[in-house]
């Protein structure tokens, strides 16, 4: 096989082009990420849109979340932590059955933050609700207050912790919306897994950016919050419940 001079030049140009472009593309990804020095901004509000009609009988979101965040159980369902869970709903009137993932709803007015005596429960400027593990005293009042049962108390010693998701016996924890990934310009592990191996039921994005896919899809068709009567303005929205 012979290669003409023209082909050599073409391949060379392509290689040079790729070499020049690749860092540029990488830079775009990095530019989307927040630098560690930069504070979270209220110009963004991170959220999820979950389409229950797309959610099938799998739990890849749960597995991915717990793997990503090192949430290891001890085979004790009553006390093991669950950052995200699959809930099955059956309509009492019609018998229609559906399933959906449920986690911290990242409320704009989070009851857990209101009741926390030390301020360990807090909401970031970009809407992500977190627990500061250093000042949580383990009083569990946030668990009493959360309408979504989204929080877990760490009932025993932890193993297999991840550096980005510290856990500690005697403190309360919940879904962080994979804040470590979001800050690096990536999407939460549950959403990634659902898109890859699940029913593509979950969409992550900036609710405040009118150009974002999530904002556009929310603007186009009806969606709902769980317990909208509480007027908490959740960051996690559902469709087809």
């Amino acid at each position, binding site marked *: 096989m012979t290669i003409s001079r023209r082909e050599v030049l073409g391949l060379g140009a392509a290689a040079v082009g790729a070499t020049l472009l690749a860092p540029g593309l990488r830079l775009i990804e990095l530019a989307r990420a927040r630098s560690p020095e930069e504070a979270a901004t209220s110009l963004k509000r991170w959220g999820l849109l979950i389409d229950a009609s797309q959610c099938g009988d799998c739990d890849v979101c749960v597995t991915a979340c717990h793997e990503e965040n090192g949430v290891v159980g*001890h085979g*004790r*369902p*009553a*006390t*093991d*932590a*669950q950052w995200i*869970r*699959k*809930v*099955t*709903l*059956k*309509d*009492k*009137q019609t018998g229609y059955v559906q399933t959906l993932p*449920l986690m911290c709803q990242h409320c704009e007015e989070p*009851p857990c*933050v*209101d*009741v*926390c*005596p*030390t*301020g*360990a429960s807090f909401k970031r400027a970009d809407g992500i609700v977190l627990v500061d593990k250093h*000042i*949580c*005293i*383990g*009083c*569990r*009042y946030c*668990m*009493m*207050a*959360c*309408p*979504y*049962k989204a*929080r*877990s*108390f*760490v*009932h*025993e*010693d932890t193993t297999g912790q991840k550096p980005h998701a510290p856990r500690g*016996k*005697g*403190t*309360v924890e919940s879904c962080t919306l994979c804040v470590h990934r979001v800050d690096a310009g990536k999407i939460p592990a549950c959403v990634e897994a659902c898109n890859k191996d699940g029913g593509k039921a979950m969409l992550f994005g900036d609710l405040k950016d009118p150009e974002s896919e999530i904002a556009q899809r929310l603007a186009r068709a009806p969606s709902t919050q*769980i*317990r909208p009567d*509480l007027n908490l303005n959740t960051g996690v929205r559902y469709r087809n*419940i």
Partner: protein
Amino acid sequence: MTHIHYREIEGRSLGYYVLLALLGALVLAGLAAAWYMEHNGHWVTGMSNQIVWGTPHVFAVFLIVAASGALNAASVAAVFGRAPYKPLARLSGLLAIALLAGGLAVLVLDLGRPDRLIVAMTHYNFKSIFAWNIFLYTGFIALVVVYLWMMLERRLNAYSRPVGVFAFAWRLVLTTGTGSIFGFLVARQAYDAAVLAPLFIAMSLSFGGAIFILVLLAACRGTGRPLGDELLRRLKNLQGVFVLAVLYFVAVHHLTNLYLAERQGVERFLLLDGGVYTRTFWIGQVLIGSVLPLLIFFTARAGARTLIAFGCVLVLLGGLAQMYVFLIGGQAWPMPLFPGKEVSSGFGDGAIAAYSPSLPEVLLGAGGIGIALALVALALKALPFLPESLADTDDDPHHKTGAA
């Protein structure tokens, strides 16, 4: 008015030392239970991610509520100017501090991280009713200490009344705060009601009053000091009114919930088919804790001391039953995330949560009672809290034997 003579108790009898030993053992058992729970983590208790507050909270809230009510006798004397209650004011203040200390100790030792108590003292979220309560509790203790000082120091006696009035106002706010810990919980149908604040005030009057009568009877009997029938008659009648007040607010709370379609599920659970919670409510709280004591308090003669003491014990057992149904039963009922749907998950959604109290939890709670009573026993020996005599002619100059 005749002068009241107070004197420390001797505290040298065998009975006193046996009492201290028993209370000390209770305290040690409580501390050991707390250590065991913290060392292993809360999974060794009956508590879970469904029942997040368990038996320790039953005892802690019971003691904290009773603490403010133990100040009744002092308040009746200071605020309403009833002379017969004045000799009781010191014991009343002492008991209030001791019960609060016992309750707070249980609360703190049941934290996931009790070692971080200093964090709770240095980081405050002022939107949290829990944070307000930290100030209400510590403020109450400080206030009652000052009140006791004004009463114990003769030169400052004149100031004891205004401080007593202030302490009365503070205790009403404090119990409002304790009730509102639950009243503000919008997510849970068994709570989330403004009536919980006055209900808790009524509970404090009743539980605190019953403990006060029991401690008074025991202290007078143990030290051989006279206690007048007339004084006891007043106390038992007042206690009956407090028991009625609790029943009234409980009835209002349940009636309101029964009227709302969305809350009929939780009411049905608590009042009709909730198994242990329904039985604890009707047999423990209503029959043993309210109906029987009412019969005793409104029919027994003041001389029937054992019967009156028995009535007070029933009130306290009923009070613990009430806290158990309220706290554990209230959490056992699932939160209404999806009205109109049957909900299920691997995290207890839509299901009645299972709970059975574990030994460490009960020991920790009983340890709190031990701390409170041990403090009282030691303080009675250290300082003159108890009058030498509470005979009717001594405590009420207006009382004539055979009157009323």
